């Protein structure tokens, strides 16, 4: 197999709240023989904040990341859908020559905007080699929750079906997990509103968790730090508020991959989640 290397942009969340996503992603890539070279001195992509304040800033912050990858002469990848979406948007808008020039001007260096930008999820989905599974995760039932930014908008970011994406389901099915069909794959969790408007997020997340439970899932598989945070850290409050009992661990797909590849739950930081997945995994003899 040819050795493939990527410029790796973890983004802010993965270096704090979502460390387990970062760690598990790196482990999985390494195990698959795919190299991630973290960009040096990378900076924030601006998330949804920058574009709402200043349009150009919303392009220039991701622009710097793109430009760094250009310097490294590598295809750019990131696990975080928010970052991915910002990077893609910037690249998309910079297809317009004037915009590209303007961003270059802000960055004080020419940005070519020709390199590939793919999320780690897509790279793994399209990886057709052996997944090096040592320990299939049989007995586990899960639903995949994709959230918004990997599937929308169509022309900019989507690499999977808009309403019924398959990528995570396909990957996790290969691990031996029974993936269930459900109706909330791409519904919104409220994103960053969990800080300024937690009420909205409670309502949305309640629905999603209820849907997962109804489908018969033991846990929810995710690929987004924000989704993970909203579904995991708000779960207790929601259970209290709506007088329900979910106890649904929210696990990154890379953590499940790592587990199947033989890494320990601790190595994959599976003990960092607020809704503890360990009892479930131990119960099934998987951790």
């Amino acid at each position, binding site marked *: 197999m040819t050795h493939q290397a990527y410029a790796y942009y973890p983004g802010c969340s993965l270096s704090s709240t979502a460390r387990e996503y970062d760690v598990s992603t790196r482990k999985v890539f390494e195990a698959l023989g795919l190299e991630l070279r973290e960009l040096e001195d*990378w900076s924030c992509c601006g998330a*949804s904040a920058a574009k709402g*304040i200043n349009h150009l800033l919303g392009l*220039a912050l991701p622009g*710097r990341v793109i430009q760094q990858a250009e310097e490294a002469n590598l295809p750019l990848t990131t696990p975080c859908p928010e970052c991915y979406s910002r990077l893609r948007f910037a690249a998309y808008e910079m297809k317009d020559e004037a915009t590209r020039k303007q961003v270059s*001007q802000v960055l004080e260096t020419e940005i070519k905007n020709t390199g590939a930008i793919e999320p780690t999820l897509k790279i793994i989905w399209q990886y057709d080699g052996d997944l090096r599974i040592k320990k299939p995760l049989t007995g586990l039932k899960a639903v995949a929750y994709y959230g918004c930014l990997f599937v929308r*908008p169509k022309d900019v970011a989507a690499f999977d079906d808009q309403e019924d994406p398959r990528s995570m389901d396909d990957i996790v099915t290969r691990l031996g997990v029974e993936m269930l069909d459900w109706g909330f794959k791409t519904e919104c969790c409220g994103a960053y509103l969990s*800080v300024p408007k937690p009420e909205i997020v409670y309502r949305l997340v309640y629905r999603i968790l209820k849907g997962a439970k109804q489908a018969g899932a033991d846990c929810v598989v995710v690929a987004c730090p924000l989704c993970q945070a909203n579904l995991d850290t708000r779960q207790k409050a929601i259970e209290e508020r709506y007088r329900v009992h979910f106890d649904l661990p929210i696990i990154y797909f890379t953590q499940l991959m790592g587990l199947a590849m033989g890494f320990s739950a601790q190595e994959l930081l599976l003990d960092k989640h607020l809704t503890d997945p360990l009892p479930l995994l131990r119960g099934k003899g998987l951790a």
Partner: protein
Amino acid sequence: MGGNSTVTPVAQSKFLSEVERESGQRIMDCYQCGKCTAGCPSAASADVTPRQVMRGIQLGLAEEMLDNSMIWLCVSCQICTARCPCEIDIAKVMESLRLMATRQGRAKERDIALFHRLFLKSAEAGGRVWELGLGGFYNMSSGHLLANVGLLPSMLAKGKLEVLPHHNKKAKAAVKRIIERASLLEGK
């Protein structure tokens, strides 16, 4: 909308063409079906719905469309955009209205605007965002002193939030410069 005042519709208003220019969307294509609103995560909590925002623009109601909570509660999830039968990018329209409001110093949802600003501040301060700091600053600045505090102990215990900001000097300098230059060059 508003609900208690008479509306004087203005066909082909200046506001309409401003929004169309800013967003690149054809607002008059909207036939008010409501599909955007039906799937919107925030609509139920807002004072006007996304469909009504589209209508308001069609009627030229500039004030009301820049001063509602919907444009701030919109999280750019793009569900509306993906499903609109008239292929209008509603999320983009919302973003454009936010930008227009910001430029005019309006923000119906001060908390969210504040959150965005603090987020950027955090990025500016460290080159990368320090999430614990962001939460803390937000609580202090918004006056919601205890918001989200309940979560803190468990999150810290799990190592989910780093107590110290993870600054990166070079990144910090770069972000600072970008913010300066972007504000300088925006609109040029």
